[in-house]
């Protein structure tokens, strides 16, 4: 199936996590023939790099993140939606007919657009973190954990992702140290308990990472105790960064109203942005809940909002 670039489509969906795929399922069932740009390397979204998802309703025994996304994708296809495995590289959203350009250079036009670009990993912002990325600094435990067998590594962060990564990494590493800036974890109780009960996991609270050390690979971290101000150097051969996410909203900057952190703002409980016919959902909007199920829920809302908008068009 190939996309017809000559016509004006009813709805284009940008992004393919639980939000984008759910919006696709709903708009496809509403006969709106959605075109979904699922991303050339980000298709499936953040869950593609996770392991077991235990809290998505309907899966008594849990499901692997990539499997869940594969199921959603197949469900999208079963309703005849058009999936494009490419990125949108620019968008013009302020007129009645919205114009989007994809990575291959095609222009696609639509009456409505659902933004579901999700979020990207936040970086610590240290020069050496970038330089040593792929040399011991990683953002993906499921991809890279294997390379840290029998090693002592650090995980930066205090939320659920940090706990999940740390637990997963104990399969390979001899010791995993969670380095967290605050006194207490942000993670949910069940995830925090699991990490605390894991004999291979240790915690360094109130600790800020000042620098990543190493010439051509990570050898250690320069740390600072934020309470006492005391600085120290500890040996690690790896650093996994799991300090949170940033919304992927750069593409619509200047067109769409967003808050200081770059999250797209929507009207009340709806998914309507400041532009007519443009809706936003998932992690792009939500800095509070950020769950697969809430993303899916807001994808559904965006689809219904778009459908309502189009029927009154």
């Amino acid at each position: 199936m190939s996309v017809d670039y000559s016509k004006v489509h009813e709805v284009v969906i940008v992004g393919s996590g639980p939000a984008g795929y759910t919006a696709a399922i709903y708009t496809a069932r509403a006969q709106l023939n959605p075109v979904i740009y699922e991303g050339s390397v980000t298709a499936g979204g953040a869950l593609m790099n996770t392991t077991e998802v235990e809290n998505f309703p309907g899966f008594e025994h849990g499901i692997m993140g990539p499997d869940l996304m594969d199921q959603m994708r197949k469900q999208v296809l079963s309703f005849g939606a058009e999936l494009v495995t490419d990125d949108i590289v620019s968008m013009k959203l302020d007129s009645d007919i919205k114009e989007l350009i994809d990575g291959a250079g095609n222009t696609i036009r639509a009456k409505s657009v659902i933004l579901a670009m999700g979020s990207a990993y936040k970086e610590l912002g240290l020069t050496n973190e970038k330089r040593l990325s792929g040399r011991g600094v990683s953002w993906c435990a499921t991809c890279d954990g294997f390379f840290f067998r029998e090693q002592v590594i650090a995980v930066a962060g205090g939320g659920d992702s940090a706990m999940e990564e740390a637990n997963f990494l104990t399969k390979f590493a001899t010791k995993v140290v969670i380095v967290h800036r605050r006194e207490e974890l942000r993670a949910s109780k069940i995830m925090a308990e699991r990490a605390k009960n894991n004999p291979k996991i240790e915690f360094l609270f109130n600790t800020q990472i000042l620098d990543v050390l190493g010439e051509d690979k990570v050898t250690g971290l320069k740390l600072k105790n934020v309470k006492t101000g005391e600085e120290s150097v500890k040996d690690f051969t790896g650093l996994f960064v799991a300090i949170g996410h940033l919304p992927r909203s750069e593409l619509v900057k200047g067109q769409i109203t967003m808050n200081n952190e770059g999250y797209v703002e929507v009207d009340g409980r709806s998914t309507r942005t400041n532009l007519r016919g443009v809706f936003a959902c998932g992690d792009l909007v939500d800095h509070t809940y950020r769950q697969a199920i809430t993303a899916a829920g807001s994808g559904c809302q965006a689809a219904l909002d778009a459908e309502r908008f189009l029927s009154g068009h």
Partner: protein
Amino acid sequence: MATEKVTAATFNDVVLKSATPVLVDFWAEWCGPCKAVAPILEEISNEYAGKIKIVKLNTDEEGPIAMKYGISSIPTMNLFVGGQIVKSIVGARPKPAIVRELSEYLN
């Protein structure tokens, strides 16, 4: 030209002694981003046949080579020219971004 598989036995001839630049994709079966970037590398390999060779090294099967090149994240795509690494791309990226990284070797 489609990408080809490279092993310890062929690495020297196929990569280090190659007359054309060779991009080595260090990957593994269990790595999601590796799978995502695989079709993009196939496309680049086909489109720029003759200018660049793209080969795939399975880090599960060829641990010692991955270790020798200090691979600790995958996918890592190292570009070898005359047996030396001249560029290292870490992590899956969209096609235009990879082509841009390789541009000086594609003309």
